């Protein structure tokens, strides 16, 4: 049965084991396909180029260090967002399961709100509406654009982590709770010492899928002008005299970078998912 709550879980999380089995040979073909796109677009673009300019491979080679530097920004932004999102999402997920409705209701509301909201809108809200510095007394703490973007990505990450935690905790058999109770564990002790340690294994694969999605979304920061790979790609294009035939190769370059990064992660996730598969 599909409830409103379920409808927002990530597609990657809900992929069944059957779908994951065929992933092994998939990535290799995927990379091959991207390389074909890259080579074809480079070759075709080259035929339209006006003579007197540097060739496309020369241009790419010249700017590759800067583009990869931009890619590093994407990785930093996504890692920080995921760290903040996890730190906030873990308690939020546990609060959702609280027996006290004064705690669980607001936690559920916050989770649903940030899961339903489009990521781009949340990013806009954070970048445009957060202050550019905080003042504590005479101390001024600057709050640059990239830090706002981190918050913008951390909010949906938080809500999704909360759902992952809730799902994992609920998937622990109730016998665990009952036996802990019979051993005089308090609710808090049961959660911290018995339930959560068992959840880590269940949470890891969907958590990694989420990380992968956040990394993919980190390029959205270019829309609001934060420096990262896509922003730098546009700048590189301008620096090379805005030659239109450079666009396809430049964008395929970043597609390939993301693919090469995401490939080991999805492979590892798939491995973990098989390894930790809950036996039914």
């Amino acid at each position, binding site marked *: *049965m*599909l*409830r*409103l709550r*379920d*409808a*927002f*879980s*990530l*597609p*990657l999380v*809900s*992929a*069944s084991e*059957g*779908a994951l089995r*065929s*992933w092994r*040979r*998939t*990535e290799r*073909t*995927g*990379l*091959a*396909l*991207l390389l074909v796109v890259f080579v074809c*677009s480079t070759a075709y*673009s080259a035929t*339209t180029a006006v003579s007197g300019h540097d060739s496309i491979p020369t241009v790419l080679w010249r700017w590759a260090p800067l583009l990869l530097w931009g890619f590093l920004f994407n990785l930093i932004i996504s890692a920080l967002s995921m760290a903040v999102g996890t730190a906030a999402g873990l308690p939020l997920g546990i609060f959702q399961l609280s027996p006290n409705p004064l705690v669980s209701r607001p936690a559920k509301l916050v989770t649903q709100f940030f899961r*339903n*909201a*489009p*990521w*781009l*809108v949340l990013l*806009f*809200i954070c970048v*445009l*509406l957060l202050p550019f510095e905080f003042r504590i007394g005479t101390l001024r703490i600057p709050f640059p654009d990239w830090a706002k973007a981190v918050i913008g990505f951390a909010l949906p990450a938080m809500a999704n982590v909360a759902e992952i935690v809730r799902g994992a905790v609920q998937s622990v058999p109730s016998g665990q709770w009952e036996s802990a109770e019979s051993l005089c564990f308090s609710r808090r002790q049961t959660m911290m010492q018995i339930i959560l340690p068992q959840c880590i294994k269940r949470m890891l694969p969907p958590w990694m899928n989420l990380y992968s999605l956040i*990394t*993919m979304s*980190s*390029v*959205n920061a270019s*829309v609001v002008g934060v420096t990262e790979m*896509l922003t730098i790609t546009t700048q590189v294009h301008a620096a090379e005299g805005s030659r*239109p035939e450079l*666009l*396809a190769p*430049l*964008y*395929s370059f*970043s*597609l390939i970078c*993301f*693919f090469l990064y*995401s*490939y080991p992660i*999805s492979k590892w996730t798939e491995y973990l998912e098989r390894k930790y598969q809950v036996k039914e």
Partner: protein
Amino acid sequence: MQPIYDWFRAFYERTGINLTFIYDSFDRARMIKGFWLTIELSVVTIVISILIGVFGAWLQGSRFTFVRRVVDGFISAFRNTPPLVQIYFFYFGLGYLLPRVMDPATGAMAPVVTNFQWAILSLSLFAGAFNIEIFRSGIEAVPKSMREAAESLGYTRGQIYLYVVLPLAVRNCLPALGNNLVNLVKTTNLAYAIAVPELMYVSKEIWSDATNVREMMLTLLIIYILLVAILVAGLNRLERALRIPGYIHAGGN
């Protein structure tokens, strides 16, 4: 309607909450246009992505290894790259490589494929890649005994697929499909990046003119959440209507 507009104008003067898209006729027209464009974008991409999903899942059952490989490659290429870069690649990269034609309406040279069409294409391919996996796992989740039972009743291969496997597979994959379609509706605002005048884009235009960023942001959030809620309600109804008593589907949660 005029009293309502006047009320909102007075509301702005009283409270400073500036909802221009209600009382200002120009902004209202833009907003409504953007809203319908978002709906159009969502509906068209949902339909095309489902078609891609069904077709791709069918191709994945192909006897030829090469065809299966290409479909697999397509899936992994689209799943492991950022959708925004995909849109840029299609619109700026491939858009440049296509010839330009004379637009009969204006007489100027225009691209063969407009930005709206590129947005539809790239978003459909992105969501379609996920849909293929979803449909395929739905088909795989149909118990083997069902096929065997149908076979023993004298059904042909085609009949088994049409009357037994497909109806059950659709029910198996509805929850996952719902997730993906909801995500697709939430992702349509990436078309903003290539200047498709959908909801996000017109909102930005309005807040640039009227400097009512907060109000527009909140409105955007509310509209998107409502759209998603409508989609989810529809999917719930569909799921209830299709439910077979006693059949517990495998992939569902």
